[in-house]
């Protein structure tokens, strides 16, 4: 997993609520057996028509918007548990998704792939949408070690929550597998001592 520390980037806005993982990557594109290449089908049916031509007006096709940060409406990533959604977003070059809340499974999948799901208040989310609309080149700075993000032309810095263990993992590029495999002794002890086993 890639390491994440501080990111400075403009952002792509998607002011739509409840964006589900079927929109992020439709099921018909889940047939690959590797993790790579899903980015080209990210938001496939919002991005391209049935002939494969870009749909005008969709943010990812709008030359005004670019960057490594996706800003999306609340309840981002609901629906299917497909990790392909997180792979597709990351593969398309995004390192952070900002929303006012994330579906649980998507949030976990993102964290396991070095993609930071950053939760802000509803008010802050709206403020970001307005700011990006006004000036699409607006840069955001996400400082993971300090757990802060800010827009340089604003006065204040905004802190965000992240589990301390998950933060360490992202900064160092570690994942849970390394950690869990090292727990083998405790796991075996648990298996041998449980009063009830299936």
């Amino acid at each position, binding site marked *: 997993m890639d390491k994440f520390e501080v990111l400075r980037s403009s952002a792509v806005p998607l*002011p*739509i*609520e*409840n964006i*589900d993982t*079927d*929109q992020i990557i*439709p*099921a*018909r594109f*889940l*047939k*690959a*057996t*590797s*993790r790579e290449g899903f980015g080209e089908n990210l938001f496939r*049916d919002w991005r391209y028509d*049935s002939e494969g031509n870009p749909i005008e007006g969709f943010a990812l096709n709008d030359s005004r918007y670019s960057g490594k940060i996706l800003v999306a*409406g*609340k*309840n981002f990533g*609901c*629906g*299917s*548990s*497909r*990790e*392909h959604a*997180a792979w597709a977003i990351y593969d398309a070059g995004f390192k952070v998704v900002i929303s006012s*809340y994330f*579906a*649980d*499974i998507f949030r*976990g*999948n993102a964290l*396991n*792939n070095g993609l930071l799901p950053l939760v802000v208040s*509803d008010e802050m989310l709206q403020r970001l949408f307005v700011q990006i609309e006004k000036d699409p080149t607006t840069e955001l700075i996400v400082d993971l070690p300090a757990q802060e993000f800010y827009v340089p032309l604003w006065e204040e810095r905004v802190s965000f929550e992240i*589990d*301390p*263990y998950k933060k360490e993992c992202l900064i160092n590029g570690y*994942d*849970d*597998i390394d*950690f*869990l*495999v090292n*727990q*083998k002794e*405790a*796991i075996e002890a*648990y*298996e041998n001592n*449980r009063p*009830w*086993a*299936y």
Partner: protein
Amino acid sequence: MAKSLFDKIWDAHVVKSIPGGGLDVFYIDKHLIHEVTSPQAFDELEARNLPLYRQRQIVATADHNVPTKNQHLPIEEPLSRMQVDKLTENCQKFGVELFGLGHQHQGIVHVIGPELGITQPGMTIVCGDSHTSTHGAFGAIAFGIGTSQVTQVMASQCLLLSRPKRMRVTVDGELRKGVTAKDVILYVISKLGTGGATGYFVEYAGSAIRSLSMEGRMTVCNMSIEMGARGGMIAPDETTFEYIKGRKYAPKGEEWEKALAYWKTLYSEEGATFEADLTYFAEDIAPMITYGTNPGMGIALNASIPDHVPASEKVSFDKSLKYMGFEPGESLLGKEINYVFIGSCTNSRIEDLRTVASFVKGKRKALNVEAIIVPGSKLVEKQAREEGIDKILAEAGFELREPGCSACLAMNEDKIPAGAYCVSTSNRNFEGRQGPGARTLLASPLVAAITAVEGKIVDITQYLN
């Protein structure tokens, strides 16, 4: 302190808690896998040179990608075939039990677990599929995971998890005629919204829930994820024990007695804490249908689409109705429907097929409708044939297919054409879920069967007396 059902099972599976954060090393009893979310996990295991830690606790099947016609022939679509072949190859290499295509126990992963007695009360069960919550109907902690987590369970039989908050959803009273488990859960989701239970694990309780069969309880728990819940569960009772007893992998003899004694301790004690505690009344629930592009956008069949929503939701609401081709405030009654899909891990069990068969017996589907029924498993299909359900369906013009996830997510050939309306017994009405441009209306098997016969959406009450 009084403990909830959830806490009893969670606590029994904590290997250790990580100091300083809110994370537990959490033990998994059963791991179900399928062809779509497992190949990258097996690859990762090999890339890291890790063994499969407990292969006997994994069960595999092929369901998401499989054709529902001519399953005895090689899969035509090359990518689907490759994915299904990869699963077979991985299961052989790692020694995992596989109910693959052609096996007498093949079927949708959330249908075969329960029907084979693999799913039992008190267990922790995971699968790389969000509808794993289905198994919670037996009083298990069951939830969907991503592929990285599939690798973690393969490598350690554990996950690193923070404990979710607890929610209880009580439905009291007697369900009205024609109101089924599907209507109950669509009603609850319409009240809570598509993200209303995010961060929670839900326990369903109350007399209306108790009155449901195991099939009905599975339908309810199955859709927990559609309101954002991590999972859903129902305390086991005589209905549960009766269902499990004698199934292939259920405990037998002395083991059964021991299991039963333990399972009877699995309930929420009086005074147990729930961070959210909601009560609904069965009498308020009518047959439901969805009009929008998430499962929270549901109404009673004879109600109208809302004519206004809070300002913050307007953009998404308008986008949704535009996709569906509906107007705010209009009724769905009389809308012509061209496709009816009965299947998916929500509603493809024998009870669902019986409901459809008993309604359509002696009737014909409307000429403008294509109606397909995809059983949840080979066992369901076999039972349907034994009971003569296949003949009733054929006479009514319904096509009984072979088992798989099918048009629920349209990964295989079973797709609804762009712009067409489909009344579906599945779990998601997202844009393009049943095929690019397809318009899905979620409903119960009974409503779906009536729609197929009428060729349009009708108020079903005329049929109930």
